[in-house]
């Protein structure tokens, strides 16, 4: 079973995302703060990361930068899943190596699953 790390600080969104991804036959682990995210990205066996941008302590950009700079995990696909949609934020995420940027409110969770499936295909 492929492993998905969700880094999301909103409890309710995190529950909904995790429940849906689990139902789609993925193993799910969740980080609730930037700090937790920073340490959990180092866990072995993660196949894909769903990353929010506005997080307490370290933000999603810091985490993305760390992922791409760390030899052992730099190839893990990262879907930035945030409600920030300004061009400067999207450009920054892409330039830091996001595999894809999705604005949460514009997508359903079914669509998120489709993107996870196609990224891991």
């Amino acid at each position: 079973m492929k492993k998905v790390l969700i880094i999301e600080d909103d409890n309710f969104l995190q529950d909904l995302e995790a429940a849906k991804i689990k139902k789609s036959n993925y193993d799910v682990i969740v980080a609730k703060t930037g700090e937790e995210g920073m340490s959990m990205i180092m866990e072995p066996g993660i196949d894909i990361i769903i990353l929010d941008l506005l997080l307490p302590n370290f933000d999603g950009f810091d985490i993305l930068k760390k992922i791409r700079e760390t030899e052992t995990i730099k190839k893990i696909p990262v879907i930035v899943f945030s409600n920030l949609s300004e061009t400067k934020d999207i450009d920054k995420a892409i330039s830091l190596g996001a595999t894809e940027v999705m604005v949460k409110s514009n997508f359903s969770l079914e669509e998120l699953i489709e993107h996870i499936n196609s990224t891991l295909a």
Partner: protein
Amino acid sequence: MEEIERLKNENEELKKMNENRSDLISISAHQLRTSLSALKWTFKMLLNKELGEINEEQNKYLSQALISNEKTIKLVNDLLTLNHSDDTSIAFNFKQINIVELMNQVILEFQGEINNKKIDLSFIKEDIRIPNINGDEEMIIVVFQNLIENAIKYSQVNGDITILFDHDELTDNIKISVHDQGIGINKDDQIKIFNKFFRAPNAVEKEIIGSGLGLFTTKSIVERHNGKIWFESSKEEGTTFFVVLPIA
């Protein structure tokens, strides 16, 4: 000298206030979207019966709630675009842009909706090369998105949409037209069509989701490019929007 200094300070103060307003809108939009995402996903989960069976009445109310939520998401998205396009303190990123490529990109984006409604869309560029224009790519995409989205939304199934690009060498302008065979804009509503938050009653009836900010934003962007926008519409022949953009 003192007067110039005072005006400079006032100008700085106003810029600062505008920046604060913009930041406030951005942050509020982010918070609103968080709640709206949660509602959207929950309604969908319930409607998909992932949490158990629902009866017909529950289905009806949940579907209405989902539509209402989508309307608010659209409103937030449009307000954010408007915040960018209407705020003259936010500089547009003017550069040479290929508008033919941008239009092709936007058409591709709407391909799903075009196929669903079995619309026959033609993009005609005459037999001439359309020169690049000096514009803000992101904002011109918004103009094209709004025009194409409206043309699709208000078209009937199996309708035709025709997009025409032409280069007027005499004035050195590009004239763009988007014609649909849709429901048209009633005579009484035509004067209000570019007003903020206005939606014509026949448009609301045809397509419930809409903020009434699309054409207002489109006009504001076109005017910031020193361009012009207008339309011709009748119930029998549908609507054509025209946009003229200067090349330089």
